[in-house]
């Protein structure tokens, strides 16, 4: 194989593929990427960790068609520091690859194509969805996915798409983020999708969609879900198992409600959290008619306290929260005012933005006993 490509185009694609390539190096072949020619003006770059596979296509001048298989990290590092010019690739004997750009030249060891895994097969994307909506879904829920590896069924987002709209739910057992949108811009999906999408897939998708306007294509089979984002195709294994029954968790009968300026509240929590315990991040909300007192203390270091005026006129109440959980939501929420709904110091509280931007966005958080 023999081709020439612009440094910038190559770097951009390698940047994407880099993210999916196996980092733990369990199967050595997975640290490589496969580059193959498609017709005369396109190359295809594929990287995978067996769970997530990314296939990118970009323009290149193919001189001899074929394939090559080289270390993803090395090629990416080299490409990054090359001058802004065209780069020519040539495959040599024993899978070696030579890379030339202006005055620099490299020889990189490659591997056999056979040792590179097969890309899972897929159907064409059956459903279209606005990239903007899907991106909002991810941004507003990804932070609540558990980081605990052992909690397999919580380590992804529940995504449901059907003719009544789309929703995404994530949780780590302590809090839960829920977002739903009924208006999907006219094209009601013919086929429904219901899948548990791994966290890594969502993170990679966010990267792919940063520059993507318009629509993305989605499809799913029993074990995989795939996304067409422009010329790139991301195929991900879905998580098997039972996502918790989130509907049961959504609070009912939260009879107290108070609204805050989300910026003010966010800043207050940030300050008070400085004196919260390092590991539990506990802050105390003390709500009385007219104001909210937020406080924290650490036995050794001291304490902090801040008061925010509110229009609250219900009964006095004290609730403990993990400050990080609150901050996560306030950062993702992207609205000027936030509504708190709760019942008592032991039951789940619900937070949501007050304005209507077409999304039903809710955050359920379990209090702490402090």
């Amino acid at each position, binding site marked *: 194989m023999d081709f020439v490509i612009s440094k910038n185009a190559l770097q951009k694609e390698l940047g994407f593929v880099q993210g999916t390539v196996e980092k733990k190096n369990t199967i050595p072949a997975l640290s490589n990427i496969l580059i193959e020619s498609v017709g005369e003006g396109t190359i295809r770059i594929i990287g995978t960790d067996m769970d997530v596979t990314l296939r990118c296509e970009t323009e290149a001048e193919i001189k001899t068609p074929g394939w090559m298989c080289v270390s993803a990290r090395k090629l990416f590092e080299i490409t990054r520091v090359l001058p802004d010019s065209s780069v020519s690739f040539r495959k040599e004997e024993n899978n070696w690859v030579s890379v030339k750009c202006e005055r620099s030249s490299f020889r990189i060891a490659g591997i056999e194509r056979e040792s590179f895994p097969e890309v899972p097969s897929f159907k064409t994307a059956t459903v279209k969805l606005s990239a903007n909506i899907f991106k909002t879904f991810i941004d507003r829920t990804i932070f609540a996915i558990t980081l*605990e590896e052992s909690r397999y069924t919580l380590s992804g987002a529940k995504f449901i798409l059907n003719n009544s709209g789309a929703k995404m739910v994530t949780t780590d057992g302590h809090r839960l983020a829920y977002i739903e949108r009924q208006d999907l811009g006219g094209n009601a999906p013919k086929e429904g999708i219901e899948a548990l999408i791994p966290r890594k897939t969502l993170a990679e998708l966010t990267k792919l969609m940063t520059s993507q306007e318009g629509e993305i294509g989605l499809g799913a089979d029993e074990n995989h879900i795939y996304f067409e984002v422009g010329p790139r195709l991301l195929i991900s294994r879905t998580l098997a198992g039972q996502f918790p029954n989130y509907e049961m968790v959504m609070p009912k009968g939260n009879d107290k409600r108070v609204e805050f300026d989300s910026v003010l509240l966010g800043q207050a929590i940030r300050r008070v959290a400085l004196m919260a315990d390092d590991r*539990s991040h506990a802050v105390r909300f003390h709500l009385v008619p007219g104001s909210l007192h937020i406080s924290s203390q650490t036995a050794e270091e001291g304490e902090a306290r801040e008061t925010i005026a509110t229009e609250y006129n219900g009964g006095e109440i004290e609730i403990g929260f993990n400050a990080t959980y609150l901050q996560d939501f306030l950062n993702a929420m992207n609205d000027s005012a936030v509504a708190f709904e709760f019942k008592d110091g032991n039951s789940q509280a619900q937070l949501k933005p007050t304005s209507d931007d077409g999304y039903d966005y809710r955050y359920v958080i379990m209090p702490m006993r402090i």
Partner: protein
Amino acid sequence: MSKIRVLSDHVANQIAAGEVVERPASVAKELVENSIDAGARNISVDVEAGGRRLLRVADDGEGMTRDDALLAFERHATSKIGALEDLERIRTLGFRGEALASIASVARVELITQIEGEAEGTRVLIEGGRMRDVSPTARPRGTTITVRDLFFNVPARRKFLRSEATESYHLTNFVTHYALAHPEIAFVLTNNGREILRSAPAANLRERAYQIFGADFIENLLEVGGGHESVASVRGYVSAPRERRTSRDAQYLFVNGRFVRDRLIARALTEGFRTVLPQGVYPAALLFLDVPTEEVDVNVHPAKTEVRFRRAAAVADAVRDAVRGSLASSGFLRLQEDVDEQVAETGGAFDTGMPSPETSPGRDSSRQSVETREQGEPRPFSQPAQGATRVEAEVGAARSEMEQLRQEVIEFIWSPTEEATPESGSQGEAPREMTTNQHAASSTDSSPAPASQAGRQVAAFPPVGSAAGIVRSVAVESLSPHILPLGQLEDSFIIATDPDGLLLIDQHAAHERILFDKYHELEAARRAESQNLLIPETFDLTPAQAAAFDIVAEELETYGFGLMRLSGRTIAVRAVPADLPAGEARNMLAEVLDACDAEKRGAARASLHEQIAVSLSCRAAVKLNTPLSAEKMRWLIERLLNTSSPTTCPHGRPTILRLTRRDIERGFHRR
């Protein structure tokens, strides 16, 4: 008037009962062993009020005739042996003929038994050792023994019984052991009418373990098989290294089908896991040893949980090798000749407290190497030889586990003292006897800094190895408050003097100790904060854990757990301690439940706090290769002297080494 009297049988039985019948669980043990010896296929145990009010064992074994049933309650009446020689060939679990007599002397006992084909069975009623009634009765083949009001006539004994929950815990634990040892027998255990354990006859141990412990436990088990039938054949399971326990409670050891508590086997097991599991962490294990009957003495104690091996060292080796083999074949351990040799060398410690007629080959070789060194030792210093003798002497003495460990360290340090004789050629040999980490440590030769850094990664082997000979770790008592820092060696070790000579202080280790004490105190004073869970998590407990649950539930609540008992052995967790990462909380729950012996209460929390304090202090402590001003050195030393253990860091390595004035003078031939 003569003072000496022969005790009546009744009193003698009551005294004997003190040895055999310690608590309800020991009654159950004797009765269940009888059932197993009688060839039962189904054994059911019913317990009320922790076994104090009622304990009933029913089986479908061979049963007894009327005469046997009466004779069974006589002391030293047994069907299992007839002559002393039989003791050499004990295949049955019981044999002393004491149990029933002892039990009957301290409780109200009803025995109902029937032999297959006989027209009628027999019912015998005995209270406090006195026969009350013998009458014909009917039941299917087998024997039922009901023990009511245990210790009703021995108030002193009754007072020593623990709470109902504790006694139930012991009973449950015990029945679990026997269910594991005899997968072919069906066991049912009910406590106050609640079914605690039910296991149908299983084809093998794995199936039985699955019935009892569930899938999670089984997934983490590695199969063990090895040993030699002439010494001890070893089979069973050990947990994969990812499964960690803070106590040995999850180690079930059996010798010829008999549950034993044996330090020899337990230590050999730990030895097998050395370098795979950190210090203070134990594997779970189900190990079955089959030892030729003439090679093992089970008649050590009436309770028969102690055994004595004729060839203790060989048995220990068999266990250790089988365990290492299993770890190796599942990829947790690379089995190398030289690693084995090294283990064999420290293997001398196995014999501790269990004097064996034969010396293990490992000890021989270690002694030999000491001798060789002595011969090739050109210098007048006799320290290494002295040290070796000391070690040998200490091996003989029974010591606490901690000291044992330290002693192994010392032994280890002495064996490869290549530094003293770099040209003797022993240098090439010695490092290969070490584990890989050690290899790095000693092949970098005598420079103290890199050696100690490498040593840092291996908790068990502190860095003094490179300081062979005259620089020694320091006893706390010998530390004087007048320590004057002179400067730093390689920006890592403080050089100081005190009235006894020269001191080397590892600045990182010293600071670690100071910080550890501080963090440890803070951890202990910490309030329990609790994070409620959105979705309660359910856990299926093992029978022993379920029994433990009642004892520790309250304690767990004070840590910040919110718990609720659901049906059977399932509990729901509604809240977890907020200061722990979510995964840790789950581990802690299991650990507390496993370590629930009354004495060990709070142990899991304490050890967890300790772990946290260790890692916090290690991260925050001043690093090696950091220049320190004189003020800082003085501050470090002053604070170090005020800590709980100035001479060791929280990982157990020394913080201070000393070169005594005496040795310095000797070195200069001034003495």
